[in-house]
């Protein structure tokens, strides 16, 4: 058998595993791997400007293509810079493989130059991790790492490779996939659980389908099956932030997003439902609000591939441990086989119509300034009229919630946002990664003035690889979401939430070879957006919006779904210590 170096074995594995793009940054401990990638015929390396950027690019690539994202960074600071993105991918279940260089095995533990305990640091923010001390084991590990990252509940896997292992040689043949015998995610539901779920659903008078990111992770087929189940049952559908796009926003059965900044109708439907079918969501605190008041009179079914998500925060009546797509497929087949008909849900729908009539997403739009909600709504209309495929990423803050509320998504994998970790700095690199994986799509990062500065250095990456991403900044000169909470809780003492000394984003873009556009007022909004969409190449838009708008509806932390605040007049400015202590 031919001998190969560890670095060559790694690259060979990446090719065998179908990797087309690697997002990375070189350094001493990965030089052998970089040399093996030099002028590589099939693997494209995207040189980032900061390793955090690489991780979010890999996430954006993964979320928009369904393929795992691959990151390559050096030891020590390269690995520690990647930690935020690894954690982000863990919380949002994004398949990602992070290859880190490490100091040579004989120096491990000596505080060597650029040594960090990468497996120690990433042990609890990755789905699994490895330190590979023998080049003969490398291929098996890399194949297993991809398998673990992409199967079951997807997540990030870290492979730490000491420099001497990259250089040393071992016999190499393409390995058989050998996975830990203990790793066996349950993808097919128990028949009894499917049976019970179908009967509960068929008997429900006030059902709600509560969907989440698991539907997206399960693949486009799962979204199609969700639509079919919704059509069969006639039930209303809501979704978490992570699940947007799995069900079309244009459907009559769509209630909008639920949770802290969800619609009135979605949250009230959850509160009044007699049956909640949770599909690939996890009863996150941003969704449930006060736990003892969450959907108090409903029976609950939870479909999740991860058993530890079931009964974690909310006790459910029926657990269905399975891949979402597989469970939906089984449920639909059984529904049809039993000849179930839709219940008469007209009473339920007429109650929903009353909640909808509140028009909870409406906003005052008469002043001289651009309302941020209007900016998103106009961006949405303009994107639709291009007739092209559009991928939206966001940063974190008010703009993220407004984007979720006012941009309609019709298809999965088109909405990329940091939900679980809420990472400012995610959106722009994610857009670069998505654009890499979808060269024909229009990729837009909806950003805030503060968040965009967290990975602004990646402007250079987009320039270098001629990626025509668009950044649309809702510039309110505040960390708006922080300011909103300070209004709600701390009598508007704006402690450090003003974005002082903002750069001139137009000039900043231009300095990197981008087109910069400023939108000053409502009269420029439409034309500015059109110009952004029509300009080839990367564009940064500084859209000046009303500085003090707040995001509604809002369920304050720890409040019940029924205690939703609909407008600014309901903000009290003070809270009990118990409420203050909640995130």
């Amino acid at each position: 058998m031919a001998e190969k170096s560890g670095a060559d074995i790694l690259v060979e594995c990446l090719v065998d595993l179908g990797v087309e793009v690697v997002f990375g940054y070189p350094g001493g401990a990965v030089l052998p791997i970089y040399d093996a990638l030099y002028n590589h015929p099939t693997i494209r390396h995207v040189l980032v400007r900061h390793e955090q950027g690489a991780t979010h690019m890999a996430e954006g690539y993964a979320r928009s293509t369904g393929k795992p994202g691959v990151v390559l960074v050096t030891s020590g600071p390269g690995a520690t810079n990647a930690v935020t993105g690894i954690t982000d991918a863990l919380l949002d279940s994004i398949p990602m493989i992070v290859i880190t260089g490490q100091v040579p095995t004989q120096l491990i533990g000596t505080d060597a130059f650029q040594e960090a305990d990468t497996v120690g640091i990433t042990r609890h923010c990755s789905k699994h991790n490895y330190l590979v001390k023998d080049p003969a084991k490398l291929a098996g590990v890399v194949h297993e790492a991809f398998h673990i990252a992409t199967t079951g509940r997807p997540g990030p896997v870290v492979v730490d490779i000491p420099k001497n292992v990259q250089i040393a040689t071992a016999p190499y043949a393409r390995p058989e996939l050998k996975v830990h015998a203990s790793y066996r995610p349950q993808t097919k539901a128990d028949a009894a659980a499917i049976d019970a779920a179908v009967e509960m659903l068929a008997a429900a008078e006030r059902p709600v389908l509560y969907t989440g990111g698991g539907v997206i992770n399960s693949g486009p087929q799962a979204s199609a099956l969700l639509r079919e189940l919704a059509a069969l049952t006639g039930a209303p559908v809501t979704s978490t932030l992570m699940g947007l796009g799995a069900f079309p926003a244009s459907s009559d059965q769509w209630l909008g997003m639920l949770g802290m900044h969800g619609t009135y109708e979605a949250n009230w439907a959850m509160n009044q439902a007699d049956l909640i079918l949770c599909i690939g969501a996890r009863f996150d605190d941003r969704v449930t609000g006060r736990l003892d008041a969450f959907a108090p009179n409903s029976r609950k079914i939870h479909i999740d591939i991860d058993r530890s998500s079931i009964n974690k925060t909310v006790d459910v009546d029926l657990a269905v441990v399975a891949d979402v797509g597989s469970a939906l497929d089984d449920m639909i087949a059984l529904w049809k086989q039993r000849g179930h008909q839709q219940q008469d849900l007209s009473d339920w729908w007429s109650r929903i119509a009353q909640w909808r009539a509140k028009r909870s997403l409406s906003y005052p739009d008469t002043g001289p300034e651009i309302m941020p909600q209007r900016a998103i709504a106009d961006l949405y209309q303009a994107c639709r009229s291009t007739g092209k495929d559009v991928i939206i990423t966001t940063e974190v803050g008010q703009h993220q919630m407004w984007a979720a509320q006012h941009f309609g998504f019709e298809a999965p994998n088109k909405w990329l946002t940091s939900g679980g970790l809420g990472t400012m700095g995610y959106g722009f690199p994610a857009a670069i990664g998505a654009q890499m994986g979808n060269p024909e799509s229009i990729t837009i990062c909806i950003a805030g003035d503060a968040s965009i500065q967290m990975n602004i250095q990646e402007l250079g990456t987009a320039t270098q690889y001629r990626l025509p991403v668009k950044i649309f900044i809702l510039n309110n000169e505040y960390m708006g979401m922080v300011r909103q909470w300070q209004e709600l809780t701390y009598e508007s003492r704006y402690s450090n939430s003003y974005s002082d000394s903002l750069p001139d984003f137009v000039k900043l873009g231009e300095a990197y070879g981008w087109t910069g556009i400023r939108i000053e007022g409502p009269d420029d909004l439409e034309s500015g957006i059109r110009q952004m969409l029509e300009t080839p190449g990367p564009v940064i838009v500084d859209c000046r919006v009303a500085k003090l708008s707040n995001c509604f509806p809002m369920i304050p932390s720890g409040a019940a779904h029924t205690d939703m605040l609909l407008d600014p007049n309901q903000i009290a400015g003070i809270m009990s210590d118990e409420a203050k202590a909640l995130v």
Partner: protein
Amino acid sequence: MHIQEELSQRHVLSLTVSNEAGILARIAGLFTARGYNIDSLTVADITDDHAISRITIVTSGPPKVIDQIIAQLDRLVPVHKVTDLTDAGPFVERELALVKVAGTGEDRIEALRLADVFRAKVVDTTIESFIFELTGTTEKVDNFVALMRQIGLVEVGRTGVVGLMRGKEAV
């Protein structure tokens, strides 16, 4: 505002895991990261080829938390099986303690008498001290140590609990 604590129950968990680098850190770290309690943890490999280890963890928490602990452990890649011995049926649990007691005269005789009652063995002695070896449940060891404290306890070493299900089957 004050921090509220929930009522908890003691559970003995028995895990089989792949015997690989970092496995103990993975498990212990899961407990700290998620705020679970560890009262004791023991580990040793249990197969001829040293491929599998058994870890016995004594933990405590409300039922819902125990259920989460099991689900979280089960989803770690190298964890083969998690059994909650406390829930699964009758089981045997033991720990071993070495208890050093110093004293002379009547105390020394009393220490020996108590050791006899507890079926502790003397494994080391000097004119003024004994080391007793005792196996039993955690409660038995606790009681023995409490009595020795009154006589002249010097120090204690304990292994923590190991446990197995009763009956002929493996878990």
